[in-house]
Each structure stands twice: as C-alpha cells, then as structure tokens.
C-alpha cells in the first residue's frame, strides 16, 4: 500500500536527533510490548509481515504522531483482533472474557534463548531465477493496495542486479495470510541520479532488496 510508512526520499522531517547514551527502552512498557510481539510471533499468532502491515494501516497522523513502541502496541491490539485471538471488549476490560484460541506453541522463559534466534526465510525454489547478477532491471510501477516491500522511490527506475539471495518468503503474501509463496530475492542497485534526477549526487548509489515479482527486464543501455 502507498502508506505513510514508505518514507524514503520524503523531505521536511528535519535533522536527525541522536540521543547520547540512549537507554534500550525509555519506559518499562516499551520492553513489555517488544517482548509480547516476539512471544506472539513465536507462538504463530501472527508473523513479522503482519506486524509491519498492521502498523502501515494506522492512520498516517497516528503513525507519525506516536512513538515506535506505541505503534507496536497498537499493531498488537489490531493483530489480536484480526487473527481471532481476542476481542476489543477484552482489551477495554483489561481481562480475558473468553477462552483463548489454540496456538502452535508457547514461549517459556527457559526457551527464550532459542526462541529469539532469528528464523530463516529462505525456501526451496519454485522455479528458475529470472535474473542474475549484472542484469539490468526495472522496478515495476506497481501500487498493490496491501502490504509490499517495494518502496515507492525505486518504482519505475532502472538498476542492476548485484546479488541473488535464493528464494525467500514473499512478504506481500505472508502479510495477508496467503501463505509463504516463496520468490527469488535480489539486491538491486540504483544510481543516485536515476532515482533523484540529474542534479543528484552521482557518487551515491542505493540498493533495495527486491523480490522477483517487483522486477522486469530493462534494456542494456538507457
């Protein structure tokens, strides 16, 4: 979706304000939210792409107006209801009013070390790769109404495939409960002026990680 989360290349947000000696969490509830999201994803209640998509659907003024972990809390509330794991009435009451839905597993304190290991997203290939390193490709001009990981700022632009990463879970499908639908994943590099025009810094290049359905062949020379 063409949402507010897709921030690459926007102007006007001001200078970057790095906090010296920043704590890991700025309030205890931030850690609780982070941990609940991790535990619920471990349990299979929802997945990482659903967490992202839930945030993307927050109203733009909310997305920009609240803190990072507040977005995660709002996303948890939304996912809880959407995934049939709880009701808004229960969140309002602050208590469970009905039995829970059976989930695949439950994260115990003893299993936290293993449970926090990053899972792999590579999957067996469903077919041959369409592109190889060195190929010139154009990021498609597509505007899926649901979750996608193709940022707006590269759409329609031509770049070069730099690496092929094998087949990975396709977020566009996983976010909307349509399965893993594995797709080839590539690093595609774009020159600054291709993205930002002839006045852009020619010494800058930018890459995105692009799934094969985001790409089409481009002529060798523009």
């Amino acid at each position, binding site marked *: 979706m063409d949402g507010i989360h897709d921030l690459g290349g926007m102007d006007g947000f001001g200078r970057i304000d790095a906090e010296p000696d920043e704590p890991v969490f700025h309030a205890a509830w931030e850690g609780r939210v982070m*941990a609940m999201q991790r535990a619920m994803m471990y*349990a299979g209640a929802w997945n990482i792409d659903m967490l992202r998509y839930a945030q993307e659907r927050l109203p733009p003024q909310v997305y920009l107006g*609240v803190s990072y972990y507040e977005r995660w809390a709002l996303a948890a509330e939304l996912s809880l209801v959407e995934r049939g794991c709880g009701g808004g009435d229960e969140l309002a009451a602050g208590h469970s009013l009905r039995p829970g839905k059976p989930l695949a597993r439950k994260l115990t304190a003893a299993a936290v070390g293993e449970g926090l290991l990053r899972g792999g997203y590579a999957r067996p290939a469903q077919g041959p790769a369409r592109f190889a390193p060195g190929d010139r490709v154009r990021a498609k001009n597509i505007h899926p109404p649901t979750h996608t990981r193709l*940022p707006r700022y590269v759409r329609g632009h031509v770049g070069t495939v730099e690496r092929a990463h094998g087949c990975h879970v396709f977020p566009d499908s996983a976010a909307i409960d349509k399965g893993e639908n594995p797709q080839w994943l590539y690093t595609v590099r774009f020159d600054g002026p291709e993205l930002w025009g002839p006045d852009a810094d020619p010494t800058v290049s930018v*890459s995105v990680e692009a799934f094969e359905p985001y790409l089409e062949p481009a002529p060798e020379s523009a």
Partner: protein
Amino acid sequence: MTEPDHTHAGEHGSELSAMQLRVRALETVLTEKGYVDPAALDAIIETYETRVGPHIGARVVAKAWVDPDFKRALLDDASRATGTLKLANPAGDHLVAVENTPTLHHMVVCTLCSCYPWDMLGLPPVWYKSAPYRSRAVKDPRGVLADFGVTLPASTAIRVWDSTAETRFMVVPMRPAGTEGWSEERLAQLVTRDSMIGTGLARNADEVA
C-alpha cells in the same frame, strides 16, 4: 482500537501512565488466554537490556581487522562466518557484511520500517527508526552524515543499503591508523554502533585507553 489515547508520545507523565495502563491490559489479556508467559517476557527484555548489543558486532569487526581469512569469509557469508565465533547471541540467517574503504562508504537504513541487525547490534536506537533518518538516508546520505558530524571526502562514493527484505546488513568500518599490533579486545573498543550502521566512523586510536 487503532486510535491511540494521545498523539504526542511521552510529552507528559500522565500520557505515559495511559500507555502503561494500555500495555498492562494487553499483557493481562494475553497472559490470561495462555498465549504468553510473563516470565518469558522478562527474559526477552533482559536479553536485550543486558546481553545483546553492539559489543557483539564490535567483536566481529575487530576479528575481521586482524584476520584476513575471517574477513574474507565474513564478506562472503556473514551468517556462516559469525557462526564460527561462539557469540553470546548467534546471528540468524541472511546477514550481509559490507566493508568500508577509502573509496566506498556504506550506510544501512530501513525506509519502510525498522529492519536492523538485532543479533549483531541489539535493538536499534530511536533515531534509526525515526522519520528523519528513514526519509533522508536514501536521498541525502551526505547530509545525514553531517548530522552525525561526519564529513567524507567528495571522492568517497556512498552506497546506501535499504533493508527491504529479511536480509540484514552490518558495516565493517575502516580500521583506524595507529592501531598496529593491538589485540582484538582493544580494537573492539574502537568499533561504535554507528560505525557499523554507517552513520559514523570507528573511534581514533587515541580515544580509548
């Protein structure tokens, strides 16, 4: 439920309390339904507050600085190479390490959300997840570096890596001059979090004991 209690987080103590209550309600519901174990949540928090952080990535970088074979392996397949180090928190799959040189500087961002090499650097700082960084890194990386007090020669090209999939990126900064013969432990003290994101450089030799 998508409407928050307020629109400006953390400006007032009373608003923080509202968030505390809201999150407590969520945890109570999840716990009573049997989905989460509060002790497991405690353990997750403790992991990221005390055990997983930039010191892990710094150890990897220091090793790469002193061991050319390891550096080659790291740049070839960082998940596999870091797996040989018996780290407190092993890197998951799809970790990519990229090396800064005098002619090429790397910078990592996630314009769409907050993807970050948690296993190597811990949880990301607020600025990494903020709109100013996410919007500008891909368009004006030299301006971003200026905000961090870093100026690179005009002859140094900049490569920005937008983390739009489950691949994760860490930068191997340049080894500072005057550190010949240093131990890995001492070198690791030079490796800052920001130098592994690409918004900073490693500390100078005279900045550590």
